[in-house]
C-alpha cells in the first residue's frame, strides 16, 4: 500500500461512524440462546432432549396439578368435585387430605388441647438457636426474633394456650429480643437451659424432674469450689463424681419429694402420642444437638496419642458406620431390654434418640477428623510453641479452624440424620412419611390416596434440608478468612 496516496484515494470518511448495534445473533436473547443452548450439534441434541423431558413431565402432570382440590371431606368427595368441574375422567390432585389431616401430620396424636405446648417449644427453639446460628448481625437476629415472636404468639392464641403461658412466652420472646440487642452471648444461658425446658414442655409432668437434673452440675460445681482449696485433684474427681452420684441415687427421689411438697406439674403426654413432624423434629434436633459434641470428642479420641483411647474410638466409629441405622433402631427397640438391668423401662423415643445420636456422631467424627487432618501441621506446632496445654490448644487454635473446614460435611451429616428420622417408622413410631400416611390411608375417607401425602411430606423435608444446606453455605462465606 506504499504507493497509495491520499490524493488517489477516491473517498475518505472524515467523521466517526456512530457505533452500530451488534448483529442480532450476537446480542440479547438470541446470543444467550446460541451460547447456552445451541452452541453445537451435540448441545442442540441435548437441549432438545431436555425440552422433551420437561414436556413429558408437564404433559403428564400439568392437568393433575391444575385440577387441584383443596376443600373436600374424602377422596370420593374430591373425585366428585373434579368430575363435576372438569368433566368425567379428569384427573386431579386432592390436597384436601393435607388440609383435613394437617394437625395429624404436624402433631401426631398429641392431645388437641395441648397443641400449644409443642408450638411454644418450637418457637422458643429459635430463641435458643439465635445466639448460636445468627450471632453475626443484629439485623438478622431482629428479623428472626420478631418473626418468631409474632408467629409463636399468634399460633399459641389460635391453639388456645392459657393466658399464663401466653404471658410466659411473650416475656421470654420479647426479653430475648431485648437481650439480643445488647449482648447476644447472654442468650447462650437460655440455649443451655432450653433442652431441659423443651423436654418438659413436650412430655409435661413435673417441672421438678428437669430442675433436679440441672442440680447435678450445680452440685458438682459446689463440690469443686469446696475442695479446690484442699486438693485440686480431689476437686476435679469430685466435680465429675458428685453429679453422677446425684443423678443415679437422689435426683429421682428428690424430684418426687419436691413435687409432693410444691406441685409444679403440667399434664403429662406419653411418648406414644408423639407423631408426625413433631416427632421428626424432636428426634432431629436432639440428635443434632448431641451428635456434634460427641462427634468432636470421638474425632479427638481417634487422633489421640493414647493407644487405648484411639483403639476404642476406632472400634466404636467403624462398628457404627458398618451397620445400617435400621439395625441400630432394632437394637434400641428389641435388645436394650436385654442390656439394661431387669425391670428397667426406658422411653422408646429416648432410646431412638440415643441410637440416632450415636449413629450420627460416628459419621460426624469422621468428618471432623478430616478437618483436623486438613489443618496444617504448623498450627499444632504453633499452639505447642505458645505453651498451650492440650485442651487449650484444641479449643483456641485447632478446633475453630478444623470445624470451619468441616462445615459442609457436618451439615450434610445433619441433613442425612434428619432424613433418617423417617426410619423410626420401623420400630413402631409415627413418623410423618410412612406411618402417618398409612394411618391416613387406613381411614375409609382417604383410602387409596398415595401421591399427595408423599409429595407434601417430601416438600417439607426438602424445605428444611435445603434450608440447612443454604445456611451452611452462608456460614462458610461468613467464616471465610482467606482473601480469594
Amino acid at each position, binding site marked *: 500500500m506504499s504507493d497509495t496516496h491520499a490524493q488517489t484515494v477516491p473517498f475518505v470518511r472524515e467523521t466517526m461512524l456512530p457505533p452500530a448495534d451488534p448483529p442480532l445473533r450476537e446480542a440479547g436473547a438470541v446470543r444467550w440462546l446460541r451460547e447456552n443452548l445451541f*452452541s453445537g450439534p451435540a448441545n442442540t441434541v441435548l437441549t432438545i432432549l431436555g425440552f422433551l423431558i420437561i414436556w413429558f413431565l408437564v404433559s403428564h402432570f400439568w392437568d393433575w396439578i391444575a385440577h387441584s382440590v383443596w376443600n373436600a371431606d374424602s377422596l370420593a368427595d374430591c373425585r366428585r368435585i373434579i368430575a363435576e368441574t372438569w368433566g368425567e375422567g379428569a384427573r386431579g390432585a386432592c390436597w384436601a387430605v393435607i388440609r383435613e389431616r394437617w394437625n395429624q401430620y404436624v402433631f401426631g396424636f398429641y392431645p388437641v388441647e395441648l397443641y400449644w405446648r409443642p408450638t411454644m417449644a418450637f418457637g422458643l427453639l429459635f430463641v435458643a438457636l439465635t445466639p448460636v446460628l445468627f450471632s453475626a448481625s443484629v439485623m438478622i437476629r431482629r428479623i428472626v426474633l420478631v418473626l418468631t415472636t409474632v408467629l409463636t404468639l399468634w399460633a399459641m392464641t389460635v391453639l388456645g394456650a392459657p393466658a399464663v403461658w401466653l404471658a410466659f412466652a411473650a416475656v421470654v420472646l420479647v426479653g430475648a429480643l431485648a437481650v439480643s440487642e445488647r449482648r447476644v452471648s447472654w442468650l447462650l444461658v437460655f440455649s443451655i437451659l432450653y433442652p431441659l425446658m423443651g423436654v418438659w414442655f413436650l412430655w409435661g409432668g413435673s417441672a421438678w424432674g428437669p430442675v433436679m437434673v440441672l442440680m447435678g452440675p450445680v452440685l458438682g460445681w459446689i463440690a469443686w469450689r469446696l475442695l479446690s482449696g484442699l486438693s485440686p485433684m480431689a476437686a476435679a474427681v469430685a466435680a465429675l463424681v458428685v453429679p453422677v452420684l446425684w443423678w443415679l441415687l437422689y435426683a429421682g427421689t428428690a424430684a418426687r419429694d419436691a413435687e409432693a411438697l410444691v406441685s409444679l406439674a403440667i399434664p403429662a403426654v406419653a411418648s406414644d402420642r408423639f407423631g408426625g413432624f413433631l416427632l421428626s423434629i424432636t428426634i432431629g434436633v436432639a440428635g443434632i444437638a448431641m451428635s456434634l459434641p460427641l462427634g468432636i470428642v470421638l474425632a479427638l479420641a481417634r487422633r489421640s496419642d493414647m*493407644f487405648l483411647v484411639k483403639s476404642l474410638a476406632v472400634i466404636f466409629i467403624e462398628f457404627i458406620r458398618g451397620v445400617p441405622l435400621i439395625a441400630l433402631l432394632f437394637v434400641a427397640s428389641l435388645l436394650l431390654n436385654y442390656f439394661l438391668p431387669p425391670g428397667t423401662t426406658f422411653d422408646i423415643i429416648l432410646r431412638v434418640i440415643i441410637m440416632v445420636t450415636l449413629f450420627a456422631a460416628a459419621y460426624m467424627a469422621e468428618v471432623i477428623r478430616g478437618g483436623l487432618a486438613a489443618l496444617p501441621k504448623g498450627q499444632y506446632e504453633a499452639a505447642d510453641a505458645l505453651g498451650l496445654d492440650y485442651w487449650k490448644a484444641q479449643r483456641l487454635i485447632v478446633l475453630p479452624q478444623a470445624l470451619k473446614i468441616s462445615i459442609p460435611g457436618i451439615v450434610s451429616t445433619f441433613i442425612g440424620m434428619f432424613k433418617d428420622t423417617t426410619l423410626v417408622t420401623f420400630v413402631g413410631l409415627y413418623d410423618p412419611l410412612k406411618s402417618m400416611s398409612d394411618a391416613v390411608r387406613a381411614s375409609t375417607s382417604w383410602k387409596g390416596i398415595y401421591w399427595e401425602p408423599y409429595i407434601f*411430606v417430601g416438600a417439607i423435608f*426438602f424445605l428444611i*434440608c435445603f434450608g440447612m444446606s443454604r445456611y451452611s453455605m452462608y456460614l462458610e462465606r461468613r467464616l471465610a478468612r482467606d482473601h480469594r
Partner: protein
Amino acid sequence: MTDVRAPQNASFRPSMLIYDRRYRSLTFQVIVFVLVMALAWWLVNNTIQNLAAMGKTFNFGFLWQRAGYDIPQTPIPYTSDDTHFRAAVVGLLNTLIVSVLGCIAATVLGIVAGVARLSKNWLIARLMTVYVEAFRNMPLLLWILIVFAIFTEVMPPPNAFRGDDPSASMILFDHVALTNRYTAIPTLAMTNDPGSLDLGARITFNWATLAFAAVLIGGWLARRAINRWAQDVQDRTGVRPTTWWMSLAVMTVPSLLLIWYFGLHLVAPELRGFNFTGGLNVQNGLVALWLALTLYTGAFIAEIVRAGILAVSRGQSEAAFALGLRPRRTMSLVILPQALRVIIPPLISQYLNLTKNSSLAIAVGYMDIRGTLGGTTLNQTGRELEAILLMMGVYLTLSLIISAGMNVFNARVKLKER
C-alpha cells in the same frame, strides 16, 4: 554440658499421676480401661440375668431348625423345609444382588449427571441441579415408597396384556412387561447346555457361566499383556504400536465364540393364562428398591464426580494441551487420574451407604438379610439377641470387605507421594 531437664531422681508422688506428662496418659488410659471393662461387665451381666429371667439361652442352634416360611425370590434353591441358616444365606444373597446392581447403576447415573451438571448447556445443567437437589434433600424412604407406589398403583395387572386389543403393551420391543405385581424381563437360554457344576448343598454353577468368567478374566489379562508389550516397544523405539484392535479382539472374540458355541439367546416373557412365563418375573420390591437406591445414590455420586472434576485445576489441562496432547489423551492421562484421586474415597463411602440403605427393603417387602434373618426368622424363633447380633455382624463384615477392597483400588490410583 548442662542438663536442663528436671532431675530424674525425684521421688514418686501420687499427684505425679496427674501432673507429670510421663504418667498422665497412662493414668488416663487405665481409668478409661477400667470404666470400659466395668461397662462391658455390666452389660453382659444384665444380659445373662435377663436371659435367665426369660428362660432363654444364648446359642445359635436355631439356625439349623426348619425355617418354614417361603421367600418369593431365591437366587439359590430354597423351600420352606430348609433351615433358617439357608434362609439367611438367601437373604444375604438378595442384599448383595440389590447392592451390586444399585452400585453399578448409581455409578453410571452419577457420572452422567455429574458431568451433565457441569455442561455448558444451560438447560441440561439446570435439570441436573434440580435432580441432584431433589434427591439429596428428601429421605430415601420417600423415594422407595414413591417408586414402589408407581409400580403397584399405576402399572397394569398382568391380565391387561391379554387379548387381541390389550389395554397395556410390553416395552423394549416386546421384551419387558411392567405389571403391578412383577416386572417380566427376558432370560438367557442356551441351545447347547454344557450342564452344571454341583457345589453341594443344592448350589450349582452352570459351566457356561464359569467359561464366560474365565474368558473375560483371560481377555482382561491378555489386554494388560498387550499394553505392557506396547509400552515396552514404545520405550525401545519411541513409536507406540496400534493396539486398539488387538485389545478389542481379545476382549470380545472369545466371548462371541462362546455365545455361538453355547447358542446363547434371549427368551422374552410371554403371557400364558394369567401370568408371564418364559422370562424372569422380578418382584417389584426388588425393582423399586433398586431404582430408588440408584436414583438416590446417583445424586450423591453426581456431586462427588462434579467436585472431583472441579478439583483439577485448569492449568493441568492447559499444560497438557501445551505439551501437544490431544483432548482424549488429556482426559485419560491428565484429568481423570487426578479427578479419580479426589472421587474414589467418597465414592467408597457411597457404596457402603448404598449397601446399608438396601436394608430399607423392609419398606417394600423384599426379603434381604434384614427380612429373613432379622425379620421372619427373628419373629418365628424369638431369638432377638442372636439374630440381630448376627445380622449386624454380617453387615459389618460386608462393609469391611467393601472398604478394604476399595482401599486397595484407591491405593493404586492415589497420588504417589514421597
